[in-house]
């Protein structure tokens, strides 16, 4: 094809917006002189429907096989022209767009300089067109089994949601039974169910679902492959077995660490963590008319969860037991999902809220808890230390990722985000997503979250997996980088640089080099950033639409002035 490249150049004056600043004529006359340019046409409004049909005809008539559109280059128009190429029987990647409108006309005055720039941009676009390459579609066979790691609420929900979309599910749980932390909670915000009942219902639904294979006492030991074709090694009682799965969902949750020392307290029956309180309430402990102090905000500010739980339980203790509840806080984070109302309700119900900054001292004395604190609001009028006596003190636990999260991250080849939870801090990436396609997060392993969010999260992930693995064969455009095996020295540079774990070293006779091996980019896992192509020391990797040739010829087409 290289030898009979026939380029068609289509100018669009964008209803005069472009020609107002740049004359096409001198450009067109220069362009016509360029080799391989077989056709040049100017139009008023190239993205009009009729024009599209005309381009189609001209392509056929003039046997054009590279199209340059000189006008704009926004995504919408690009889509339109790609369609046109398709209709004309050309691969849609044989299109080069020159953005005269935004890069020249809209930002420069009409002048000799802007005219020169317009010509140069056009020449660059044509030079690129000369080096365009076709990109084909591929049918990738995929495994439609989903591996869910963790048998807590998040794992159960995910298993149910993915199973409901027709996937086979393997749910692994490292403990001997399903349920996770939910079994230890008294009540869930935003969910009317009793947690124990909810749990029972979910476990029942999961265990009775024939498409969900539950394996307890099982951990993920190792992982290979990519989306649609992972090989997972399970470890159960020291024995390893492998299974093929197409997607993986981590739902490993959070753990709490009770740390009274942080508040200057030791272990005592009346020093209670929020989780312990949940347990006591669920077991039916009576707090009638008790005096209860709740402290919140000393180093727990990274997440909303501890604040909301504190308010929830304050309200509950007040209402159910008519207890005297005093909440000492540095900050109240109740933004979102009707929690503000819960806070207002708590105040209305007679829960007292006291703000402190740094100065709080908690002393356990003869079964009584004494809180001494300085109130920053009252400091001006009533300076000094206030003393509040209670029967119990409730303090928040530390929230840290579940045990083994580090290890799992290594197996999954993921980097951990803030506070060592799985979610990365990046506006482009949803909390459910990871740096690797085919590996998703549900629940508190992202970062501590609420039960009602878990359901949404599970649905999102199930839907995402459904989108990605909708059939046993997935059709995808093979725009992932390709490797010239004759240049690949399997040095692993790309493998180590790929942020998406999308590269593997493959072996086989088809790789014509000394090693019969080459790096290969998985079309489903690759996100087309091109980092690998730029790192490759052998220049073996090229990213379609952005090959080195396509970029460097644009530079070559530039004029050099001393």
């Amino acid at each position, binding site marked *: 094809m290289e030898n009979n490249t026939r380029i068609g150049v289509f100018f669009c004056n964008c209803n005069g917006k472009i020609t107002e600043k740049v004359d096409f004529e001198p450009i067109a006359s220069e362009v016509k002189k360029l080799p391989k340019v077989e056709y040049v046409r100017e139009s008023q409004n190239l993205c009009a429907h009729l024009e599209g049909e005309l381009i189609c005809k001209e392509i056929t008539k003039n046997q054009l096989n590279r199209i340059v559109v000189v006008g704009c280059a926004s995504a919408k128009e690009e889509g339109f022209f790609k369609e046109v190429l398709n209709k004309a029987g050309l691969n849609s990647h044989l299109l080069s767009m020159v953005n005269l409108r935004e890069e020249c006309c809209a930002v420069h005055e009409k002048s000799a300089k802007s005219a020169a720039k317009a010509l140069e941009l056009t020449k660059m676009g044509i030079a690129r067109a000369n080096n365009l390459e076709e990109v084909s579609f591929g049918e990738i066979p995929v495994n439609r089994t989903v591996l869910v790691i963790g048998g807590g609420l998040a794992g159960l929900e995910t298993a149910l949601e993915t199973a409901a979309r027709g996937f086979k599910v393997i749910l692994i749980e490292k403990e001997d039974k399903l349920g996770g932390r939910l079994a230890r909670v008294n009540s869930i915000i935003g969910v009317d169910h009793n947690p124990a009942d909810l749990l029972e219902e979910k476990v029942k639904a999961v265990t009775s679902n024939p498409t969900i294979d539950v394996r307890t006492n099982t951990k993920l030991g190792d992982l290979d492959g990519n989306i649609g074709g992972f090989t997972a090694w399970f470890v159960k009682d020291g024995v390893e077995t492998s299974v093929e799965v197409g997607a993986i969902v981590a739902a490993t949750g959070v753990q709490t660490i009770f740390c009274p020392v942080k508040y200057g307290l030791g272990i005592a029956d009346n020093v209670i963590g929020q989780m312990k309180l949940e347990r006591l309430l669920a077991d039916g402990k009576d707090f009638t008319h008790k005096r209860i102090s709740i402290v919140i905000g000393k180093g727990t500010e990274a997440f909303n969860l501890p604040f909301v739980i504190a308010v929830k339980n304050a309200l509950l203790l007040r209402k159910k037991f008519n207890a005297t509840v005093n909440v000492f806080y540095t900050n109240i984070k109740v933004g979102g999902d009707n929690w503000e109302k819960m806070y207002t309700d708590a105040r209305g119900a007679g829960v007292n809220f006291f703000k402190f900054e740094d100065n709080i001292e908690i002393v356990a004395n003869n079964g009584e808890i004494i809180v001494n604190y300085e109130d920053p609001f009252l400091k001006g009028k009533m300076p000094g230390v206030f003393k509040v006596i209670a029967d119990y003190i409730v303090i928040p636990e530390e929230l840290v990722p579940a045990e083994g999260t580090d290890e799992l991250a290594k197996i999954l080849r993921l980097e951990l985000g803030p506070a060592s939870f799985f979610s990365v801090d990046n506006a482009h990436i949803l909390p459910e997503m990871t740096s690797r396609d085919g590996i998703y997060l549900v629940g508190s392993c992202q970062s501590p979250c609420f039960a009602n969010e878990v359901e949404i999260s599970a649905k999102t992930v199930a839907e995402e997996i459904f989108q990605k693995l909708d059939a046993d064969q997935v059709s995808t455009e093979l725009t992932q980088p390709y490797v010239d095996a004759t240049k690949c*020295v399997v*040095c*692993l540079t790309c493998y180590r640089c790929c942020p998406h774990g999308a590269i593997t070293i493959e072996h086989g006779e088809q790789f014509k080099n000394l090693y019969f091996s080459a790096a290969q980019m998985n079309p489903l896992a690759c996100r087309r950033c091109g980092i690998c192509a730029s790192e*490759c*020391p052998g*220049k073996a990797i090229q990213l379609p639409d952005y090959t080195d040739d396509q970029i460097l010829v644009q530079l070559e087409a530039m004029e050099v002035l001393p």
Partner: protein
Amino acid sequence: MIIAERKPIDEILGFLSKHQKVLVLGCGGCVTVCLAGGEKEVGILGSELAMARSKEGRPLEVVQKTIERQCDFEYLEGIRHIVKDVDAILSLACGIGIQTCAEAFPDKIVWPGVNTKFLGVNLNVGVWAERCQACGQCVLDKTGGICPVARCSKSIFNGPCGGSQNGKCEVDPDTDCAWALIHDRLARLGEVDSLREIMAIKDWSFSRDGGPRKLVREDLELESGK
């Protein structure tokens, strides 16, 4: 693998000062893997040289080529037609490739473009560390798979010397004390008592000290029985 690093540009520019047209010749072997002399580095260096010489007002024409391996004559044979038209070759191969190149083209000046540094491992992208000195007689069986010849600053066989502290070498606090590594590894394997035995004086004749080495395997030679 052989680890190399590009020479300082001034040195290279000095070599090329009297030439107008040079071939920058990359190698697809070790130097590509260690990011010193593959096709990418050839391109970058070519561009850098062209710019530097333009700046001096004495343009340099740079021809670029990367071959499979410069340490094999057959591969060099394939570029004879390119070599013919240049004043000199700047080879980005290791010392072996540079010499093979010079031997293949006896009438052409061949300049070294890299310093061949050591035989080592790629710890991560951009990080390499020495692992072997090709001493010709491996002692790794006695040292828990950690080489005292390559990795101890004094290449001692009955270490660690008195400069070992906190597992680091006195010569460079960023370098692990090889003998501390050996000790710890053998301790982990339950074999530390083997270190109580004095390791014998080494026969360096297998090493470079025995003169330039050559390996001939008659069982493999094409014309056997000679």
